[in-house]
């Protein structure tokens, strides 16, 4: 006999809601508020338009929109916002979620089926949310002989490393979380962490399948890191800098893919291999080694790995855009903010409201973000495409290709770039003389 849930009563549901709200308010006023005030006493509050941002001032934004705009503006320029929301984690996670949805529908279209359909009324747009809820509510099972600390920390490290990678990608002029002078080297250093995490969590799970999968992941990532680095050297030679923002600025007139198409192809193939996507998904080849190094992960640990994988996908696609497709450069499509609103304010009937902080985002940033997202979405679509067309290849073929073909091809474009440089066609600044 299956158990059937007790009958639903709206009044009882609303009563329980009120109950919960009452307890939350009580606990917050007794415990939360003192803690908030103690914290506020110690932290340094920012200055907004010459005024110190006190809690009282912060409360006024509820009533007066003209006060809220500068507060929001000062907030969106903090490091926290950059890391957590816009060019950093939140933006990337949003794009990653869109990627998952598009991947499902796109693949479904290619395979003559409809993909997610019923969840969320419009073409199953909430399917990912349902999957996330399912993963969260599932039990996390840890194998009995697993090395628990490493096993637990593996997914967290994976997401953390993917987040670090995401933070290096410049989205719009000035909108990048971390902008080191040696940005490209930082990218190489970051992606060097992924194989270690894979092989450590594979070892920690203490299963044969994870171990074989981890070793495959290790071999694949290590062997494809070399053509990846070599294929990007031609960009460094042409632009004369390692800073990703400066590389984007150097492509104002010509995208580097015009001069380095072979590098672009090699880089594209290596990122598919680094991302462990079909046809290079050997570490997770389910017909040979169950699920490879992810075999023993369950519940939200698996969800975190998937989140990290898709963040990584976004970051690699963004890197491709930044290095080859001119990043945020593109014709201005976003209209400039109306000047008279900034100077005179908005007049509604008898009331004239002045917003001192407007506009929140400048035109360049919105335009740059638009172009960046369009280009990145195109690259992501190209990365998704092989999954519908190709079968998985074998590990020895993969390694053979990595060590012989792609490394050789990567060298070709370095010499082309050097030739262009010495022939005087291109200068290190990126302009045609």
């Amino acid at each position, binding site marked *: *006999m*299956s158990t*059937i849930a007790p009958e639903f009563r709206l009044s009882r549901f609303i009563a329980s809601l009120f109950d919960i709200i009452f307890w939350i308010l009580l606990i917050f006023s007794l415990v939360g508020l003192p803690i908030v005030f103690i914290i506020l006493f110690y932290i340094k509050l920012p200055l907004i338009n010459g005024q110190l941002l006190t809690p009282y001032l912060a409360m006024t934004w509820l009533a007066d929109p003209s006060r809220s705009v500068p507060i929001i503006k000062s907030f969106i320029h903090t490091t926290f916002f950059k890391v957590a929301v816009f060019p950093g984690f939140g933006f990337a996670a949003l794009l990653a979620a869109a990627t998952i949805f598009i991947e499902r529908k*796109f693949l479904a*279209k*290619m*395979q*003559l*089926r*409809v993909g997610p*359909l019923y969840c969320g009324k419009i073409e199953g747009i909430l399917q990912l949310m349902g999957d996330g809820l399912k993963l969260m509510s599932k039990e996390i099972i840890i194998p009995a002989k697993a090395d628990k600390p490493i096993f637990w920390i593996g997914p967290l490290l994976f997401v953390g490393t993917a987040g670090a990678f995401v933070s290096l990608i410049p989205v719009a002029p000035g909108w990048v979380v971390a902008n080191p002078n040696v940005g490209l080297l930082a990218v190489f250093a970051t992606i060097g962490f992924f194989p270690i995490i894979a092989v450590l969590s594979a070892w920690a799970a203490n299963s044969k399948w994870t171990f074989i999968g981890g070793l495959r992941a290790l071999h694949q990532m290590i062997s494809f890191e070399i053509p990846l680095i070599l294929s990007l050297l031609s960009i460094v030679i042409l632009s004369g800098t390692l800073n990703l923002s400066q590389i984007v600025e150097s492509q104002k007139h010509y995208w580097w893919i015009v001069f380095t198409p072979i590098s672009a192809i090699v880089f594209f193939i290596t990122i598919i291999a680094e991302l462990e996507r079909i046809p290079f998904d050997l570490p997770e080849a389910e017909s040979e080694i169950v699920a490879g190094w992810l075999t023993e992960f369950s519940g939200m640990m698996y969800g975190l790995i998937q989140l990290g994988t898709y963040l990584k996908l976004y970051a690699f696609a963004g890197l491709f855009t930044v290095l080859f497709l001119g990043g945020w450069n593109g014709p201005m499509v976003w209209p400039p903010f109306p000047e008279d609103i900034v100077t005179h304010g908005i007049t509604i009937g008898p009331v004239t409201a002045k917003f001192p902080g407007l506009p929140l985002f400048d035109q360049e940033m919105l335009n740059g973000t638009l172009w960046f997202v369009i280009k990145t979405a195109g690259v992501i679509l190209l990365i998704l*495409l*092989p999954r*519908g*067309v*190709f079968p998985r290849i074998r590990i020895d073929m993969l390694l053979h290709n990595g060590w012989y073909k792609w490394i050789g091809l990567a060298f070709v474009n370095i010499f082309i770039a050097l030739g262009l440089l010495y022939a005087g066609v291109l200068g290190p600044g990126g302009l045609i003389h």
Partner: protein
Amino acid sequence: MSTAVGIIKALNSGVKHLAVKRFTLRYPEQKLKFVGDGFQFNPEAGVGIAGLRGRHILYHEHCTGCQLCAVACEGIAEAIGMVKVNETWKQNKKAIMPQIDYGKCVFCGLCVDACPFYALYMTNDYELSSFTKSALIYTPGQLAIKPKMSQDVEIKIDDRGASHG
């Protein structure tokens, strides 16, 4: 070089299919149209009449309680049992009629082949799920009801591919 050509051909073939019609049947909204009213049998000629082998329908006025259907089912699924009914029919002195357990039935239709009195046929009704196992046992009274079906989707083939239109 041939590898590159092959890869481009495969990609092209994949991309071309983005525009081909979907084959998927959206089940609860659409239901497949079947031939006829269900599988029936003509004992005189010894051949069946084509149709879907779904849930049975029992004509009480023809059933004689001869148990041939239960005997036929005995070696296959043991889904049919004979039960007493509170009805009086001239031809059915024992007042027993088949009761079918759809938790066991394999829908082979050999019981229909076995019935010589035009009493047991099959219908187009295949949606038999229930929450309990006991609800899957259909009494003779339930078996007598003719199901109402609205099944109208067929495979359509045109130059953009096949689809359940």
